[in-house]
């Protein structure tokens, strides 16, 4: 007797596919910056509260990632880089992604409120709304400034971390937000310069498509220059100190130099060396954010030992 079984319809999703929906790589940046925001705050939290808060902030970020993938499934299916994601490849049904996103949003906000305070929970809820609705639904397909506004969603985590500890927003929290906010456009536009994706067919107005590549290069330079005073100001507040100031000055000089090199180049030169400068700037921008936030953390450690900070 022969038995033939055919599994047609949707391929069964693995646990990893659901993890993919939460954009784990973006989550790692969220975890790091939120942790720094929490640890440099003048009020200390119990280690268990820190772990819980970081977990729920990461979960909230993951939830907004799932909602974003649900909404953008049509774009992801068109573009080479995102075609293999769980939704466009058919491993996860759209309803499942929406359900997971909504459920995790609720759980993360309520649990962060219980673990720390209501202000932090409110800010996390706003961040999820901002990324999933304001950025993904309203602005991403409407304006070439989508990267700038979307950057705000990625800039909230250190502020949420700070509010978890202190219960309110202060200048330091706003400046940590501003550093990531100003850093995001040059970081992503450098990527857009060398990743020649078919945003056009996907219907996403990227600056490289709508305003051309020379304009994008100019934008990278302008935002890099604007980032400098913000980073220096942050280093001059209570989260900074001589070490942070020195690190910020060096990093920003380097950042602006890289952006200047990008601005000076023509497309022909860039294509000739396969976007070497753009790729180098992109890699450096990742290092920039990591080092500058690590400097805040080290400064806080030094201050606790009676060495760093402004006295």
């Amino acid at each position, binding site marked *: 007797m022969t038995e033939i079984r055919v*599994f047609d319809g949707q391929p*069964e*999703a*693995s646990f990893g596919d*659901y993890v993919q929906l939460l954009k784990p790589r973006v989550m790692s940046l969220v975890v790091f910056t939120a942790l720094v925001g929490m640890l440099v705050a003048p009020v200390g939290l119990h280690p268990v509260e820190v772990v819980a808060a970081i977990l729920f902030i990461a979960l909230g970020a993951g939830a907004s990632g799932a909602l974003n993938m649900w909404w953008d499934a049509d774009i992801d299916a068109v573009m080479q880089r995102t075609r293999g994601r769980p939704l466009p490849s058919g491993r996860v049904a759209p309803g499942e992604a929406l359900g997971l996103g909504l459920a995790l949003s609720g759980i993360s906000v309520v649990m962060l409120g*219980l673990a720390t305070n209501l202000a932090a929970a409110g800010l996390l809820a706003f961040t999820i709304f901002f990324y999933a609705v304001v950025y993904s639904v309203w602005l991403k397909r409407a304006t070439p400034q989508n990267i700038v506004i979307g950057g705000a969603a990625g800039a909230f985590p250190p502020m949420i971390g700070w509010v978890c500890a202190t219960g309110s927003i202060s200048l330091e929290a706003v400046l940590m937000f501003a550093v990531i906010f100003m850093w995001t456009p040059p970081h992503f536009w450098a990527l857009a310069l060398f990743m020649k994706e078919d945003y056009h067919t996907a219907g996403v107005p990227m600056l490289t498509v709508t305003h051309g590549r020379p304009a994008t290069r100019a934008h990278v330079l302008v935002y890099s220059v604007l980032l400098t005073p913000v980073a220096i100001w942050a280093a001059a507040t209570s989260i900074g100190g001589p070490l942070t100031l020195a690190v910020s000055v060096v990093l920003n000089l380097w950042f602006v130099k890289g952006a200047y090199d990008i601005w000076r180049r023509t497309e022909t030169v860039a294509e000739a060396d396969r976007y070497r400068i753009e790729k180098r700037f992109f890699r450096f921008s990742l290092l920039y954010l990591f080092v500058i936030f690590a400097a805040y953390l080290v400064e806080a450690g030094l201050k606790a030992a009676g060495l760093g900070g402004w006295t």
Partner: protein
Amino acid sequence: MSFRAPHEIYRRRFGRNLGVGLLLVGFVALVFALTVVKVTRGDSMQGFDHTAAPVNIPDPAVAQSAVAP
């Protein structure tokens, strides 16, 4: 009677169920730890035990001043 090798789909389902199970156990452990921390670090608490505690008896002087014109 024959033993068939289980289809790959069952292995994937098992992996998924195991993942969800471990997540739930982790979540319970975290909430428990959080509860212990909140309770042990909380402000001094007083449970009502249905007996007159001195602290609950109003001070006559305060009560007098409250009704005085």
